[in-house]
């Protein structure tokens, strides 16, 4: 009997349903409807969900465990940073932008400072440039640690997230000792940086550099070498090179797709021209590659910290800049490589002491757009793996 015949047979020959009185409360299946018919389930993943890395909200259409369609819904953390920035003096805009990408605020600060310097034609002292590179890399490791740790958590391994806090603590104590803050640093300012390394910062960093390779090895044991982890991430969420470029991706997700574009290499800023480093590139663009690229970047960033400490020149950390910044009318774009990708600040000035327009090119937003494209066809569990591998920060997406 074919399925059609079977469903035909359920209907009585006269086309009438058999007059069976169903017990009260039992739903009667309408005539002619296949009793085994299924329907798609639409679930709201987020904004309160342990694995959406903040207040991301993704609508998933599910067929059982399989994702049929996905749509990201944003804006739960929208604070109007771009609008508020139009009403602040230049020196105060940095504090706003710190809160955009709150895990690696220093990169957004740096982009803003560079854009302001471009407009005003400020020459930044060399030492400040080196300090900018140094702190960029410190924050890069701290941010990648979070990315790796939470990624382990997304996949179901609790341990790495708590282990990374050990190293992050070491880095944050350096940041705290120099910038006075553990998250919203406001350290990089137009014209240079806030202050020089404190006496205790360098020994702390040297100590960190001594222990970090061993700890990195620990993560490779906990995650990279774990068969279950590999089974969960290999071949999942493949973003090929063409898709990555079409969707304007940047940072580790772009490089994992096999396109080695890094702002630090291609448009050197701060002291990156004097530093030697490689840019890790993935092959297939799956979650596994994105994870490995981040692991490798951490190792390289540790080398860069060492180079920065060794090559740190003497001199001022701040150029002579007026108390109230009044850049001449004009436009400037400055990009830096943040742990999430290319952070760009597009600054429009009208000659007054407040910016006319500040636009933040948020790498997380651009990287996230691909989610709707990649997710269909994967399982629910993979959706978590894909979001985690993109390492988004909602503060930056929603601004």
């Amino acid at each position, binding site marked *: 009997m074919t399925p059609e015949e079977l469903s035909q047979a359920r209907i009585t020959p006269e086309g009438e349903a058999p007059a069976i009185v169903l017990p009260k409360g039992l739903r009667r299946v309408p005539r002619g409807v296949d009793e085994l018919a299924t329907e798609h389930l639409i679930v709201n993943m987020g904004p309160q969900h342990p694995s959406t890395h903040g207040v991301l909200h993704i609508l998933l259409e599910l067929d059982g*465990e399989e994702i049929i369609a996905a749509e990201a819904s944003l804006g739960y953390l929208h604070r109007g940073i771009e609008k508020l920035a139009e009403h602040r003096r230049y020196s105060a805009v940095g504090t706003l932008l710190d809160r955009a990408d709150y895990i690696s605020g220093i990169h957004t600060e740096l982009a803003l400072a560079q854009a302001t310097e471009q407009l005003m034609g400020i020459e930044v002292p060399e030492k400040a440039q080196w300090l900018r590179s140094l702190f960029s890399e410190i924050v890069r490791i701290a941010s990648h640690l979070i990315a790796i740790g939470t990624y382990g958590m997304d996949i179901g391994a*609790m341990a790495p997230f708590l282990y990374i806090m050990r190293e992050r603590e070491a880095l944050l104590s350096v940041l705290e000792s120099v910038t006075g803050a553990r998250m919203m640093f406001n350290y990089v300012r137009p014209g240079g940086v806030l202050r020089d390394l404190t006496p205790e910062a360098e020994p702390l960093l040297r100590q960190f550099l001594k222990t970090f390779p061993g700890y990195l090895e620990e993560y490779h044991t906990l995650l990279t070498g*774990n068969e*279950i982890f590999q089974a*969960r991430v290999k071949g999942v969420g493949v973003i090929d090179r063409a898709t990555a470029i079409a969707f304007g991706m940047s940072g580790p997700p772009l490089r994992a797709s096999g396109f080695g574009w890094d702002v630090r290499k291609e448009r050197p800023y701060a002291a990156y021209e004097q530093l030697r480093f490689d840019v890790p590139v993935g092959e297939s663009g799956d979650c596994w590659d994105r994870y490995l690229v981040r692991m490798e970047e951490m190792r390289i960033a540790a080398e860069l910290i060492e180079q920065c400490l060794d090559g740190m020149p003497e001199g001022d950390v701040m150029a002579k800049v007026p108390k109230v910044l009044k850049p001449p009318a004009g436009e400037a774009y400055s990009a830096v490589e943040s742990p999430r990708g290319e952070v760009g600040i597009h600054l429009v000035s009208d000659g007054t002491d407040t910016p006319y327009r500040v636009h933040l090119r948020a790498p997380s937003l651009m990287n996230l757009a691909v989610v709707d494209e990649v997710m269909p066809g994967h399982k*629910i569990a993979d959706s978590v793996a894909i979001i985690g591998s993109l390492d988004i920060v909602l503060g930056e997406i929603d601004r």
Partner: protein
Amino acid sequence: MSPLLSILVRALLALLLMLANGVVLIYMLRKVLGHLHLRIGPNRVGPFGALQTSMDVVKLLTKEDFIPSAADKWLFRLAPYMVFVPSFMAYAALVLGPKAAFSGLDTGLLYVFAVLALVPMGVMMAGWASNSKWSLIGGMRAAAQQISYEVPLLLSVLPIVMTAGSMSLAAIVKSQTGYALGFIPRWNVLSPQIVGFGLFMIAALAELNQTPFDMSEAESELISGFANEYSGMRFGLLFLSEFSNSFIISALAATLFFGGWLVPGIDPASPVMVWLGPAVLLLKTYVGIFVLMWIRGTLPRIRIDQMLALGWKALIPASLVWLMLTGVIVRAVS
């Protein structure tokens, strides 16, 4: 003592053991996971935080009795008991020592698996009755997991039944007395049955809903799966039965593979075993639970389709082959 009273006393003792285990295990889980994760765990309430779980029980008991408005109220109320009762019933089969057992069931092994097979029904009921999509997916996962892992779990212990010639847990323990080569205890885990132990271990992890197979809870995917909408003591019951299940499975593993209450070097018939036996079994069980917690603190979670594939394509064939091999050997030896 009248038989009825005797049954009542034993049931109460089993309940006491179960509740005490719950309190101890939750504290142990927090401490073990804490130290595995470079943190401390509870350390504020009581010495070394030992009273933390008791306080949590008080908290759970005094919480608002909350039922989501869209939930199926009766099923929602019933489900925690559907989870709790079978796991309590399983205690009846445990053999703690030569003279300590809640009941002398001849088919204790079969009985344990039969009642434990009812647990996922309660889980599915909880998932369905919550009327939440995440809970529903969790409940459905529990059902799929149950069907695929109950089979290898039973198949992996059948070789033991063959070698022991009985389904009674007491008889299985007795069959492990004596020494091979004069000094190696004849525990099943020290015999070729270690293969069966490996199979049992994997299937038991899945049966217990433990990492890496915690599909129906899957914190990072389904938030908390079937337990999503539960709070207060209903959640407490779900939680408690989870711990009691891991106690039962660990006790089973100790009984089937690690010689139960036997201690190498002490004659099982000696009177000292009457009290030493239960203590040793508890110790062995707790070591087993520690291993479970260790795994929980270390491994990531496998994906549902991979888990089902592992169950059907690897575990079931492997345990069938092992069962057949054991059968051939047992037949050839006798």
